[in-house]
């Protein structure tokens, strides 16, 4: 009997605890949500995104908030999986009554949170997601503050041509990760063909799976093809392993890829193996404009106290995306004269959505608004690895 009562009380307590997690309603406050991974495979990137967004929130509040009212950001954990992420969106939109949400991270997660956001009627600005078509399939409330890979690929291929003048290109593609796969099978073949480069294995690229433990089979195959340069449809860590194995097997050809390569600290970790690799991205700590410099400084300062650690100390383009996203929402609030507080939530959220739909340009650190399917517009910067770092190619 005691056990029975204990169990019932336990369940009751847990249910009440969850119900109480909704935050207190407040009047003179603008509330937004940040839904990114704090646990799971994306934890490091997610924590950096938290810091980047918080830098923006702190800056805005230091200047007196928006029309005198404070900006409040509620952070939830997507757990790097769609179940937790969906629960988090419901919490943010339903209980916490936020105006808009920055996040999620990962296309796989966005595929569930985006349609949910449409049903609820709340804008989500993904910080990282480049699987083709995700925002396009989820109009009108889904936006991705990321750049689609084809623009980056065009710039990269141009740089590769100039630098190496290759005749024969071989491709190696990750068939598991949606983004890497799209880069290798949909983006690069077309872009390379347009640039008059011959892809010798376009129909049957060399394939692998994300996070594979070794690449001896794949590299042996690449070597047998004898290309002049190799295109990578791969995420950063896998790219690094592929290039390392290639050098081990005696291959000297250069490698190139797009944005995912910029992640994973390839220059620092790769040593001499990776020198000469070319990739492109929307931002890097190399850029010298004043706003980037200011952001890097504020970020590093905040990173000492918020989620401190080796993997969050330095920013990459994810926190820049979350920083810009916060400012975009603030921009929408101001432009649409949205009043603080929790009333008329539906109308306010629609107003924000309208503003985002019309955001053809934006003066962000690395964000220039959205195109008509909700994907981000940004500048592309091409880099080559030299002296243990990504050096900007002018």
């Amino acid at each position: 009997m005691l056990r029975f009562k204990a169990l019932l009380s336990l369940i009751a307590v847990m249910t009440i605890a969850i119900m109480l997690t909704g935050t207190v309603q407040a009047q003179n406050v603008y509330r937004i949500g940040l839904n990114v991974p704090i646990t799971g495979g994306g934890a490091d990137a997610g924590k950096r995104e938290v810091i980047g967004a918080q830098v923006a929130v702190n800056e805005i509040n230091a200047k007196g908030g928006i029309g005198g009212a404070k900006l409040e950001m509620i952070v939830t954990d997507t757990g790097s999986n769609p179940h937790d992420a969906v629960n988090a969106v419901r919490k943010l939109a339903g209980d916490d009554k936020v105006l808009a949400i920055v996040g999620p991270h990962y296309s796989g997660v966005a595929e569930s949170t985006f349609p949910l956001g449409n049903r609820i009627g709340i804008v989500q600005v993904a910080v990282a997601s480049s699987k083709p078509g995700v925002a396009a399939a989820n109009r009108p409330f889904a936006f991705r503050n990321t750049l689609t890979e084809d623009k980056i690929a065009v710039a990269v291929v141009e740089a590769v041509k100039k630098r190496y003048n290759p005749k024969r290109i071989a491709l190696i593609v990750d068939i598991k990760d949606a983004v890497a796969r799209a880069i290798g099978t949909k983006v690069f073949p077309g872009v390379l063909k347009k640039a008059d480069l011959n892809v010798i294995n376009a129909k049957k690229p060399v394939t692998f799976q994300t996070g594979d433990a070794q690449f001896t089979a794949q590299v042996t195959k690449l070597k047998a093809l004898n290309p002049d340069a190799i295109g990578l449809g791969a995420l950063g860590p896998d790219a690094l392993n592929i290039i390392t194995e290639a050098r081990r097997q005696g291959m000297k050809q250069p490698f190139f890829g797009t944005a995912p390569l910029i992640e994973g600290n390839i220059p620092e970790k790769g040593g001499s193996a990776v020198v000469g690799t070319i990739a492109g991205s929307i931002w890097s700590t190399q850029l010298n404009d004043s706003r980037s410099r200011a952001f890097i400084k504020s970020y590093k300062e905040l990173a000492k106290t918020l989620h401190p650690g080796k993997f969050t100390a330095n920013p990459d383009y994810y926190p820049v995306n979350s920083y810009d996203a916060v400012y975009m929402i603030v921009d929408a609030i101001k432009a649409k004269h949205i009043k603080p507080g929790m009333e008329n939530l539906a109308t306010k959220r629609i107003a924000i959505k309208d503003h985002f739909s019309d955001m053809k340009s934006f003066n962000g650190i690395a964000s220039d608004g959205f195109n008509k399917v909700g994907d981000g517009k940004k500048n592309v910067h091409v880099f080559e690895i030299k002296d243990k770092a990504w050096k900007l190619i002018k």
Partner: protein
Amino acid sequence: MSIYMEGILMQMGINILMAYSAFIILATGQLSLGNAGFMAIGAFCSGYLTVRLGIPLPIALILSALLSSLVGVALGIPVLRIRGFFLVLGTLGFGETVRAFFINFEPTGGAYGMRGLFGTTFEMVLLTVVAVTIGLWRIEQSRIGRAFDAVAADEDAAQGAGVNVRAVKVMAFGIGAFIAGLAGGLSAHHLLYVEPGHFSFLVSAMAVLFVILGGMQTFWGAMLGAVIFSLLPEMLRFMEDWRLSVYGAALIILMILRPNGLLSRVFLRNIAMKFQF
């Protein structure tokens, strides 16, 4: 009810169904660590029916669960001859093979998955859970339930007493697969998207874990295990980045404290007596 609470309860309901699917198989002395495979079949099939063929969700759910059930029976037959860890690993292998199959199956999107699913409501999940609960309760009270118990306790004795052991064991897989198929269809139309990555071995393992933690003698144990361990990760949100570590540790500790689970038949009978059921 807040949409947050609603979402949690819906996922809890789906977890309860998965726990039931693991339970009914355990009730015959067998074990499946591959129920995520049945869940996948239910999910992809129902998704295909609703998104590509425009069939209403309830019908799509039933049809897919039936397909899953057929596959369950097809699996139940060859596994009749294996026991112990072979059974564990065999069902595990089955689940992984199903997942790998869908990675290559283009009509449901392959590795990219399928979009456009919608329609799971709180009422639908509630109704399904209630219906399956009643079903399991009826089975438990009936001759079939007693046959299940007999087979779980001692197959040879049961055979001797006239129970068609083979039929009982295969039936358990069929029923378990049906319930898992329902769970898969409901889940996919709740997450509004489906991809093979949603049906990993961990999903199968958690279903079994819920049952063992809740008490595997009765299906109420499966329900209890699913309820508590669906609430726990949400409740632990305040732990931020330690959330999942604490979750894992909590599971281990609970197993040590209550190795036979939280509920047992004797316990429930005592409760029933107290309330004069």
